[in-house]
Structure formats: structure tokens, C-alpha cells
């Protein structure tokens, strides 16, 4: 049975190929959390039915920022820039803390970080005389990028 002859349509008109294509795009956007006008509208409905609360930390930061933003400045523009930079840094910290794992519930990761080491183990066969250098560099870059991601996860308390 295809989507076109599903008995579930009952009194509704069977879909056109274009409709099937659009429906597929909507499904993918919903599942991937991507921007899509219809997916955004559907997501917004959840905030009408049951809006989640604001995280207290975020609220405190917004209050703090508003109070500082509206404070009279007597020390020149550079001070304001410094405050803005500090707040931006604090925002970064808040974002990291609010999206990171809860230290009280997150499992303790005992694995140690991947450390620096020789690239010798990456190569078991000779490379081509022509173009071999690029392949060699690509392999090293790929491997080190993987190490970097692994260390990033481990530091965040996540076992990759």
C-alpha cells in the first residue's frame, strides 16, 4: 500500500506528489529541529498548550544585564565596552552551564584525555609519490580532529 491509496484518507482527497514532497520536508524539519515555516508554527503551538518555565539562572542574568545596561555611565565609553565584554563572557558561561550536564546527576567519566603522540601509528603503508603528501596530511588532520572532539566531550563529562 502506498501513501496514495491508504484507506486512512477516507473522505479526504489523496495527496499529490508535490504534497507528499512537502510533507516529507516538514517531517524532516520537525525531526531535525531545523528552521521551516510550518515546523516553526507547529513548535510554537506547544508554547500555547504548555509553556516551559524560564530557568532561574537565565532570569537572574537578564535582570543583572538590564540593571547594568541602564546604569548611568560616568567613566567613559571604554568602561561600557568592558562591562559589555564581561557580560558577553558571563552569557557564554550561562549558556555553557545551562546546556551542559548537571554535575549532580551526570555520570562521572573516569577516562583520561587523549594526549599528544606520534603520528607513526597512523601509517602502515607507503604513500604514493604523487599526491601522497596531501593524503598523509588529511589523515593526520582527521585523526587529530577526532582527538580534539573526544577531549572536548570528556572535559564536559560526556563519554563519547
Amino acid at each position: 500500500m502506498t501513501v496514495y491509496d491508504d484507506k486512512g484518507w477516507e473522505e479526504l482527497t489523496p495527496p499529490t506528489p508535490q504534497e507528499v514532497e512537502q510533507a516529507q520536508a516538514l517531517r524532516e524539519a520537525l525531526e531535525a529541529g531545523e528552521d521551516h515555516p510550518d515546523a516553526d508554527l507547529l513548535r510554537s503551538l506547544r508554547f500555547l498548550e504548555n509553556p516551559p518555565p524560564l530557568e532561574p539562572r537565565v532570569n537572574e542574568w537578564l535582570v543583572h544585564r538590564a540593571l547594568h545596561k541602564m546604569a548611568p555611565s560616568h567613566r567613559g565609553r571604554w568602561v561600557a565596552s568592558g562591562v559589555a565584554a564581561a557580560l558577553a563572557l558571563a552569557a557564554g558561561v550561562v549558556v555553557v552551564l545551562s546546556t551542559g550536564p548537571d554535575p549532580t546527576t551526570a555520570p562521572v567519566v573516569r577516562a583520561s584525555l587523549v594526549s599528544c603522540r606520534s603520528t607513526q601509528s597512523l601509517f602502515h603503508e607507503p604513500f604514493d609519490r604523487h599526491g601522497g603528501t596531501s593524503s598523509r596530511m588529511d589523515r593526520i588532520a582527521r585523526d587529530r580532529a577526532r582527538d580534539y572532539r573526544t577531549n572536548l566531550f570528556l572535559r564536559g563529562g560526556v563519554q563519547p
Partner: protein
Amino acid sequence: MRWGSENERSLPQTSKVTAVTPSDAADLLDEPRLVQRAKAGDRRALGTLLSHHGPRLYRAVLLPRLGNEARARDALSITYEKAIQHMPQYEWQPCGIYPWLRVIALRTALDMLRARRREVLFDPQDVSRELESAQASVSSSMPGLDAFHERDELDAVRAMLHDALARIHPRYATAIRLRILEDLPREQVAEQMGVTPATFDVLLHRSIASLKKVMDVRGTEGSEP
């Protein structure tokens, strides 16, 4: 993959919504005294007032109307700045400071809705009407307390959603209710509705198209004098 799983963790149960009234707030905060201090330039008092009322402004006013968490946080931030800026002009009312803050939040939401293409159930005219009503409440000496229950505020926006769903084909409404509002997996909803997952995708696609038509009709109705 369930697209809403991240939100789901932070979603409280409807039954747990607490009703907070201005009198509760006043009891907890000694609000008149805090407002007096805030008007005199006491930043700590101002911070306490904003910290107390902000979460409710976010959850009951901004998030349902803007339909997006990042935009609602931005709107709350602007609301705080405007409240700080206009605090010296605020005059204490028996209903407390929340209705005044709510007017600022609604005005902020209205500005943001007007600046963007429509992608939420609320349209600028809905919010404009609410704003007028809220302003009238603040300017009257003793508005009805019912209007200031968080639970009532949330019920009002839910009613708007349910009204819109009642205007579309029941199968479309069911698709939205199960997949979006109840966040059930696609396959489970499809089974429950007696169709294949691919057919369900088309149903959901049609549901949103149908809902948008209802929204347009509502917008047209609202624009009539």
C-alpha cells in the same frame, strides 16, 4: 527521533501550574515597599521585583505569543530595560506592579510580532486588543483579580489554541494534538490514527495548512472595525 524531546524535559505538568496573585506577591515581597525603594533608585529592590515577576511574564505572556524561546527571552530582556527606564513614572496600584509589567511585556511582544512574518497563532491584532484591555485594567483603580492569575492567563492562551483546532477537520486536529501537543512519536500517532507513517506526514502537512487558513480568517475577522 522525537523532535521535542529537549523541550519535553523542561515541560511542567499542567496541573502543577501555580496560581500567583498580586496579593501573594505582595505578601512574599512587601511589594509596595519594594516599589517605593525601586522608584527612589534602589537597584536591589528593582532587581528583586523583576526577578520575581519575570518568569511569569516569560511563561504566561511572552512565550505563548512569540512562540519561540529565544525571542521570548529577548522580549523579556527588553521588558526589563523598559521597566527600569520607566519605573520613576510608575504609580503604585492596589493590584500590584505585575499588571504594569504585563502591559510593557505585551507592548514588546506586539512590536516584535509586527517586525516579523507571521509564524505564530497570535497575530499583532490579537496582542493589540489584549494590550488595550491590559492598559485599561492598569489605569482603573482596582481591576478584577481574576485577570491576574497566572493559571487564568495560561488558560486563555490554551483556549485560543483549542478554538483554532476546533475549526479544522477533526483528523487534522487529532494529528496536531497527538504529534505536537502530546509529542508522541510519529509512528505511534500514525498507528493510533490508522494510517501509515507516510500518510500521517501528509495529514500533518495538511493540518498545518488548514490551521493557517483558520489563522488568516481570524486575522481578517479581527481587522474588521
